[in-house]
């Protein structure tokens, strides 16, 4: 019984064991640990969406996402996944005025993300975020099936229920394995997020049509849990955390697997319902300079934009800015050019 999971874990542990290119976050100011490369690379990644050519934009985007994964896994040190980012931001703010370099070290990732979101729109979600990219790549496998479900208005489907059940089984088996092999401790709380995701999948199996948008508000709850956790000094690892840190963390591995498997049934399921950063980013990007303007009068209701959107943020030429990931798929898909990307510095 121990054979396969053991080997799997060992394989993954070997895979994720130590992956950073540099053993410190590169030396910068005064030979200290500084995430300067983060500012550099994230800044570059954020600027890329603004200058890529319109032709084959989605290919560029995928490249950007792959580059984002590489950057986050191999270079960035302070971002321990979405939760760690919130926590580190708080830490960094606390260091301002005392250990300024450490403040920069911890704040650079979240500040860069928020600042680029405020200026260039929520492009981080659609173009850079490694968690989102992972889910998107996984979701490509079941694209046809999920699209059919979406176009039929999320009917109750045995297939979906079955897949949700599969996720649940993966979850429970792994939890059982964690529970019997080792004692459980605080950082593993990411298990709860996976659990919530599994429960969500089950709930959504029956009520997706009615509750999809409503349940997205759980993100806010998730955000506040993490913020309060940061205030209380509780470490909670995120899914995909194991990819960013040097530490192989089975609980994080579990939640990553659940998130990825979940993304097979609902594209970007983590972003939709649980991602705490999404709140902050959509807040920051509300009045961003760069945004997608839609001219509904041109819309022929062909449904192409709705088909393409991974997070169901657009329908019939109207964009729900709170959900939009700025992937610009709708812009590229629209046959009548309903959408235009605008830079408006006067936007208030």
């Amino acid at each position, binding site marked *: 019984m121990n054979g396969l999971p053991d080997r799997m874990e060992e394989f993954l542990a070997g895979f994720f064991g130590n992956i950073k290119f540099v053993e410190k976050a590169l030396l910068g100011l005064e030979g200290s640990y500084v995430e*300067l490369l983060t500012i*550099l690379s994230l800044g570059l990644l954020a600027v890329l969406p603004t*200058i890529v050519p319109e032709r084959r934009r989605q290919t560029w985007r995928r490249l950007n996402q792959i580059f984002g994964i590489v950057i986050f896994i191999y270079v960035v040190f302070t971002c321990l996944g979405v939760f760690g980012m919130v926590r580190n931001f708080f830490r960094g*703010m606390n260091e301002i*005025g005392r250990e*300024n*370099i450490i403040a920069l070290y911890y704040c650079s990732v979240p500040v860069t993300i928020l600042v680029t979101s405020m*200026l260039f729109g929520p492009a981080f979600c659609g173009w850079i975020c490694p968690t989102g990219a992972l889910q998107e790549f996984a979701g490509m496998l079941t694209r046809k099936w999920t699209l059919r479900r979406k176009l039929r208005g999320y009917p109750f489907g045995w297939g979906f229920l079955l897949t949700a059940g599969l996720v649940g089984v993966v979850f429970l088996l792994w939890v059982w394995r964690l529970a019997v092999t080792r004692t459980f401790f605080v950082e593993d709380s990411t298990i709860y997020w996976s659990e919530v995701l599994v429960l969500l999948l089950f709930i959504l199996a029956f009520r997706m049509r009615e509750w999809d948008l409503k349940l997205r508000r759980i993100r806010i709850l998730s955000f506040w849990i993490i913020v309060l956790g940061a205030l209380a000094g509780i470490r909670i690892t995120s899914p995909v955390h194991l990819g960013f840190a040097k530490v192989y963390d089975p609980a994080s591995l579990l939640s990553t697997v659940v998130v990825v498997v979940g993304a097979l049934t609902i594209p970007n399921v983590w972003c939709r319902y649980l991602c705490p950063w999404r709140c902050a980013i959509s807040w920051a990007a509300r*009045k961003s300079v760069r945004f997608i303007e839609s001219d509904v009068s041109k819309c022929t209701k062909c449904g192409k934009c709705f088909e393409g959107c991974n997070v169901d943020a657009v329908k019939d030429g109207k964009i729900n800015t709170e959900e939009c990931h700025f992937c610009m798929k709708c812009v590229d898909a629209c046959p009548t050019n309903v959408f235009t990307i605008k830079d408006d510095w006067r936007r208030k």
Partner: protein
Amino acid sequence: MPRSSARTVIPLFILAAHAALHAMLGIGGWLRPFELLSLLLLGANLVIALCLWKGSWDLPSGTCTMLLIAGHGLIGQRLAPDSLTSGAMLTVNILIVYVGVKIYEHLSRLHFAAFAGSYLILFYIFLTRMQNAEALFLLFLMGLAATARDFKLLTYFWAIVLSFTACQPYAWETTFSSFLILTALFSIRDSNWNPASVIFLVGGMALLLFVLLPVIVLMAGEDPRNVVAMLKSESVRDALRLTAVTATISTVILAAFCVPLAYALSRLDFKGKSLLLALADLPIIVPQSAAGLAILKVFGKQQYLGGIIFDAFGIRFDGSVFGICLAQIFVAMPFILKGSLAAFESVPVALEGAARTLGASSFSAFKRVALPLAMKGVVAAAILAWARAAGEFGAVLFVAPYPETAPIAVYNLFNSVGLVQTAPLVTTILLFSLAMFLALQILVKLAPGLTRREGSGA
């Protein structure tokens, strides 16, 4: 696409200048010949030149960026010791230049002035006034870039900057409170406002802040671990439990008597009613210590009434839970009575009349019409009374100093070990009270049936 001559000339010129600069520096021995960063800078300039030439970047920001890159080629490396720092600075500077050009082009001169001024002040604060703050400068510059185009955001940004530089020991607290004030100020701007009331508001808020700051500092400044450690202590938990239990019992007793009384007072009119209402406020007027003494004088075990009760039921009030409840009931009574009275008075009598004609007895009408409609006010009053009862110190101290309730525990601890060691306990109690209070408030908000009062016939 027709290209203007500037599009062709300027990039080439700057590119040439950059190359010449590097050649000069290289020949003069100022720069290592094939230093990575300088090659990168040249490469970046080439890319931007191409972008400019192709027309996919607008002229002013492109030119400024190229100049900036050239400038970094010249002096950036002298300033920053390593290529990475230099590169990060360059990135942030490009962002600033880009934002600055855009603000200059698209927004008013006032915006640009605010942006440039902010940059200079940040420069002054972080690079001139503070030591070792280059990192912070980078951090805050990014913030400035994001917020500069909106005065409201810029104000918030400056609130953060000033809180974290000028008000350092209380940075979070100041941020929090200034955000509160700013949000309030910004949100009134739209409604019809006049200078007088805004000034009054600001003044009042300043005082409110003065009241709130100690509380906020106490709560934010304490290490959560100390609080947890406090919560783990048996005596503290006992005190908190006792406080919660006695306050709840007192509130229940008060509710059982005062809510019907308030209903009666709101519905009946009789001689001496106003006198009765005035007397009901007496516990507020009487100093707590005096109230405690008064209770002791009547209900003390040695006293007449207290003696009778003790003989008859074996209940003693001084130094027991009953005494605590008694003192709490005494002080909290006006709050629940007045609150419920106001709530019941807001319920139209006609509704009860309607209920009567529909077959409800007067008790039933109270239960099914008056009480549900007044419930929000009644519960708010009960919560207030609960808070008052839980926080009661003076009267309880006289009547029943033991078993310790939370306020008395604070007093005793302060007397024995002093300020520093008492602080975590106070924070604990504060958080506990706040949590209970919020929980009750949320409960009232969320409780079904109580939320649908919008537009009642009041």
